[in-house]
């Protein structure tokens, strides 16, 4: 594949990667701009029927896997805290530690990754299939703007869904952590809840939700972008899904990092 001269290989690769990254970011920005235009009331606004359909498909049907993930995450956090709890005798901190980490960091992060795999990938596959089967061209021929009809309801639905799922996940994770703490570390229910409620602030919960909002927006934009710009027929659909999932995952980590530092 690489036809570059050996001496030039690394700069060439770096250059290509940088260009690809920039063109992707540029494409995302353009899509976001189009979305902004499509959302204005005089442009037709949001298609309510489509929105509800996507909310159901993306949200309601993701609840089982998200809930299971969250329950395990809560449990794992307690499990990881166990040695330190035993070392420092800090039973009072278990509840706080588990909920703080889950609410602020791991909850949004893991739910974001699963959401990306489930809903983001699916979304790209769906849009890409519509493109290669010329359905999108069909919409254009009917003077229907694909951005306002296809992309806008998806982006809104995915962002809302992501926030709602993190809320659900937080609640379930709390239960998972509670269970493991009680069984494994002999931390009583009251002790756990007292520790969590007295030290945890509303802000900690909000940080997680802000992250969810960012992730949801990022995943939805990325997946729509990759779906719509698919090339090369049916095999291209697989490539588009792959590219979208990976780009979103990378985006999630970068956004997570930035928001961890920017939101104290």
């Amino acid at each position: 594949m690489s036809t570059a001269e050996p001496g030039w290989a690394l700069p060439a690769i770096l250059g290509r990667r940088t260009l690809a990254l920039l063109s992707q970011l540029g494409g995302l920005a353009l899509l976001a701009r189009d979305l902004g235009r499509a959302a204005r009331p005089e442009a037709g606004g949001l298609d309510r029927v489509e929105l509800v359909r996507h909310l159901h498909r993306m949200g309601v049907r993701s609840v089982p896997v998200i809930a299971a993930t969250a329950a395990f995450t809560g449990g794992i956090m307690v499990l990881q805290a166990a040695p330190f709890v035993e070392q420092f005798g800090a039973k009072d901190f278990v509840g706080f530690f588990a909920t703080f980490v889950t609410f602020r960091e791991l909850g949004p992060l893991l739910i974001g990754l699963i959401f990306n795999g489930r809903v983001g990938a699916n979304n790209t596959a769906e849009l890409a299939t519509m493109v290669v089967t010329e359905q999108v061209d069909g919409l254009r021929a009917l003077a229907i703007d694909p951005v306002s009809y296809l992309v806008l309801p998806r982006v809104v639905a995915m962002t809302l869904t992501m926030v709602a799922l993190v809320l659900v996940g937080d609640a379930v994770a709390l239960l998972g952590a509670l269970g493991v703490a009680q069984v494994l570390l002999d931390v009583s229910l009251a002790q756990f809840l007292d520790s969590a409620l007295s030290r945890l602030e509303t802000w900690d919960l909000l940080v997680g939700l802000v992250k969810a909002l960012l992730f949801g927006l990022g995943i939805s934009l990325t997946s729509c972008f990759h779906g719509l710009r698919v090339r090369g027929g049916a095999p291209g659909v697989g490539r588009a899904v792959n590219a979208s999932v990976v780009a979103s995952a990378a985006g999630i980590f970068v956004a997570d990092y930035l928001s961890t530092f920017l939101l104290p």
Partner: protein
Amino acid sequence: MATAFPSPGSLAALRFQLRELVKLTRRTLEMAVAPRRGGRAARRAFAEQMHLVGNRSMPFMIVTMAFIGAIISFQTALQSQEILPDLSQVGATFTKLLVRDLAASVGALPLATRVGAGIAAELGSMVVTEQVDALRMNNADPVETLVLPRFVACVVMGTVVLVVGGFVAFGAGVLVGQVAFGIEARTFASTALLNGGDVALGLAKCATYGGAIALVSSERGLSAFGGSEGVGRATTEAVVGSCFTIIVLNVLLSTGGHFLLPAL
């Protein structure tokens, strides 16, 4: 391959998938320990897959793990401030957490996204273009020729990638400790709390997750049906299934580790 298609998403479908996964796992493991046949071509397939898994995911994983390391270090230090009077233990705690769990368990999720999606898309398109049937017509067992090389490659190279990623995360963590909290790098980069059990548990997790990614994604890819849409669906299910399997395995391994390889 299977003539019964339970409706997707239902509990019956989940049970069916689980049964297929167990079957595939058993056959792959049987083949992994059986004497090799096939010679040069088989060796080439193994080398190719190793290269692919390592090459495909290394840059992505290095970037991702740097962010993960920075986030974990930041949070560990932030929380320690609440509990402990001084920050001298933060580095040792961070290192222990990273080795014992987070490098493998958090790193495996982006790895699953990257590698799992690739495997499922590749095998899925081989199924829908009838290449897998063509293999069977020529007495080439798909498990032996397709799944086994991917399994071995994921176990070996998955471990390598995750260990390298762990070091990157460690480096990023030390940097954050220094810059954001003013902890001397020499104090921070401490292995005081680390023991052999932590390393063993961490490596066991890496290898198990690698194998799980290969098996879950191969199973989903091989059961793809229905054109490019089917491949997209298989990819989605592979990513979600792999992530979810990793989280479940983490609970099992962490619980087992808690008793068999105690942290302290």
